[in-house]
Structures are given as C-alpha cells and as structure tokens.
C-alpha cells in the first residue's frame, strides 16, 4: 500500500512538470520554472496568510 512505501510513485509530479516545461520552453525551461515557482509561492503564502474569499461569491461567467 502507499503507506508502507517510502518510495514515491514511479512518475513524480515534479518530474512530469519539468518534462512538460522542457517541451514548452526548451532550454529556457529552468528559468521560467523558477520564476513561476516564486510567483506561485507568493500566491500560496498570501492565501494562507490572508484567507481571501472569492468575489463575487457566484461566478459572473460560467
């Protein structure tokens, strides 16, 4: 079961993302990946800290 195994699944999300980024951005992939990681980190941290709620509550456009 997944609990007993310390090894991650054969295909790790991080690796898959890196491969996708390489396909999209070629040799610039590491630079874009780093910029995106920093930005996502800021977004996640702000959301954790400030607990923003969606506005408007109901989407305007479905």
């Amino acid at each position, binding site marked *: 079961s997944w609990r007993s195994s310390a090894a991650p699944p054969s295909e790790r999300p991080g690796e898959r993302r890196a491969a996708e980024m390489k396909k*999209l*951005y*070629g*040799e*610039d*992939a590491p*630079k*874009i990946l780093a*910029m*995106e990681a920093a*930005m*996502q980190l*800021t*977004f996640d941290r*702000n*959301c954790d800290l*400030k*607990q*923003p*709620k*969606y*506005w*408007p509550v109901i*989407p*305007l*456009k479905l």
Partner: protein
Amino acid sequence: SIPTSAASEEDAELLSEEQHARSVLRESFLRCLLSMTNKKVQFNMYEKVKVEATFGASDIDVLNFQVSDLHTPIGVQKEALIRCRDVISFTFDI
C-alpha cells in the same frame, strides 16, 4: 517530396523557434504580473462590473488573482480572490 530527415530537421528548428517565442512572451508577462504587486488595479469584469483593488499575486495558471481592499459596489472586502474567468480586462499605472 521532402526526404524525411530534412523534414524532421525543419520540424526541430520550428519547435525551437516556437519554444523561444513562448519563453520570451511568458517571461515578459510574468514580469508584468510582478510589477503589479501592491499596485492599485481597476478590474473591468463581465456584467458591467468595475472594481478597484490592491493587487497581491496571481497563480501561475492565471486562474485567480489574490487582492486586498477590494472596493465592491456594496462595500470594501479586505481580502479577496478574483476569478480570472470573470475578468475582461484590468488596468494599472506604471
């Protein structure tokens, strides 16, 4: 007809051109989002909704904007998430 090797060489060249264009465009866009941090931004949304807020951050898939001091038609919401799908355009000054 074009021999396969030449065709695949052309494909590879096109792919690398496309990758380069994509990374140039993306890097500029990410810089634009970064430059918005702590700036007043006016959002022009569907249903003729116009609101102003202080920009915090965007997720990298451009699905949500995290903002503060959102001036809604019924008052100020201190912290909010705006769905990018609700937005037509937004404006800020540099």
